[in-house]
């Protein structure tokens, strides 16, 4: 009886092992087939991209150079590859060359194809949006403006760039309004949009938003203004700095002022250098260093004894970086300072500057 039971158990174990082995083999075969299929698809896509490139590149570069050329016949299956290639060339160009490429794109029938792509996968939708911008399809402004309400950041950025290509001036308020409403962007992404728009108009529009935005949105707005790269915002910033009691806003304003280094803003930085909030004093010290006015050296020397170490550090860096006081004088000053914290801050900044200079010199020798 016991022997029969043991034999039956062994049979079950063998069957389970065989079944598991068969399943593993089947899974391996399926994975192998899937891998092969994906490789074949990738190879076919690569062949198609190469063929499309061979057919379209001569026409695209000839048109960009101002020579006559007809677009090659567009096969339906080639649309995404051709449109991607077209967009890559258009992305590199501006001026008349871009306009000529836009004409070629319209002649090739990209407008209809791009609209069809808007209803497909995300990557194809982005390709369609990009192409609509490059062929300057102004009739589809409302469609593209609608896409600015999409939550997906990549789609949003592509639509903003397309609108900027259609009409940079009209795009400023539309894009700026939506830009202010989002907080998931990165300055590097924004630069790609903002460089297509008139920077002064963007900065001025964003600066106007400062006065109507709730305090918690102001730091984000200031980062946007900084990314615009235009000092056109400075008059609005000065007005806001004169009335604002919010320390985070003041610190942000001083950071932007330091970025543009307009000596007209030195008075704001001087007023804020003794602000009760250390974040403001840090930015005021940096700003005074950027303005590099000799009369402000005394204010920065006072900050070397600040209660917050980061203020002492920035003040020392500002003094060394501004270059209004010679290195020898700063070294003498460091020896004379009665406050050991102030002495440490200045010594460290002088050493860091000397280190940076030696790295620069070594780099030049290696080169």
């Amino acid at each position, binding site marked *: 009886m016991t022997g029969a039971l043991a034999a039956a158990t062994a049979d079950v174990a063998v069957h389970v092992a065989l079944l598991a082995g068969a399943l593993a083999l089947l899974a391996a075969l399926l994975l192998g087939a899937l891998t092969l299929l994906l490789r074949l698809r990738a190879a076919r896509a690569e062949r198609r991209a190469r063929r499309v490139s061979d057919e379209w590149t001569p026409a695209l570069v000839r048109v960009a150079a*101002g020579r006559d050329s007809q677009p090659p016949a567009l096969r339906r299956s080639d649309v995404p590859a051709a449109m991607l290639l077209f967009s890559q060339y258009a992305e590199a160009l501006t001026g*008349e*060359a871009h306009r000529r490429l836009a004409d070629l794109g319209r002649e090739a029938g990209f407008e209809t194809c791009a609209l069809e792509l808007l209803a497909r996968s995300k990557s194809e939708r982005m390709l369609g949006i990009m192409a609509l911008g490059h062929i300057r399809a102004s009739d589809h402004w409302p469609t593209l403006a609608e896409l600015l309400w999409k939550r997906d950041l990549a789609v949003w950025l592509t639509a903003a760039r397309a609108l900027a290509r259609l009409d940079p001036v009209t795009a400023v308020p539309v894009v700026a309004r939506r830009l202010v409403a989002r907080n998931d962007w990165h300055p590097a992404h924004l630069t790609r949009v903002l460089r297509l728009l008139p920077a002064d108009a963007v900065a001025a529009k964003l600066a106007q938003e400062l006065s109507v935005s709730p305090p918690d949105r102001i730091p984000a707005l200031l980062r946007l203004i900084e990314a615009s790269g235009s000092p056109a915002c400075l008059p609005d910033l000065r007005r806001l700095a004169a009335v604002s009691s919010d320390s985070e806003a003041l610190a942000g304003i001083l950071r932007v002022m330091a970025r543009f280094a307009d000596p007209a803003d030195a008075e704001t930085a001087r007023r804020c250098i003794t602000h009760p909030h250390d974040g403001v004093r840090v930015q005021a010290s940096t700003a005074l260093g950027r303005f590099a006015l000799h009369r402000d050296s005394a204010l920065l020397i006072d900050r070397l004894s600040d209660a917050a170490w980061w203020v002492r550090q920035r003040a020392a860096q500002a003094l060394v970086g501004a270059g209004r006081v010679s290195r020898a004088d700063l070294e003498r000053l460091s020896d004379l300072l009665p406050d050991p914290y102030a002495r440490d801050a200045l010594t460290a900044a002088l050493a860091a500057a000397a280190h940076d200079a030696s790295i620069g010199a070594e780099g030049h020798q290696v080169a």
Partner: protein
Amino acid sequence: MSQPPAGGAAASQTVLVVEDDDHVAALLRFLLDDAGYAVTHAPDGRAGLLLASSGRPDLIVMDLLLPYVDGFTMLARLRAAEPTADIPVLVLSGRSGGDDVAAARRAGASDCLTKPFDPDILLARIADLLSPAATARVDPQ
């Protein structure tokens, strides 16, 4: 469309394009070839330095973001080496920040343009850099 330099001067002038983006490189090759320049192309900074020292082009058009040897290092090495120190360099960069342009000029770039670029402006700047007056102005660092 800019015209090639007057008097067929371009026919004897060589331009080295150092650009890793195939599309921009194809565009530059066609534009410069069409304008009458002899064009060589290097897809990275290391090949660019080799071609610059071996071929002694009349002008270099280069990107800043390059594989192996980046644009700033390449500029410094071009300026530090005697055979390439006086070759005018036009930087055509995708980096649009004013700081990058200033840094490129400090590193020895003769002129800077950012992408996207206008071919007409590019050709005009190249013609200007290759004019006898500009060649005399190049100051090796």
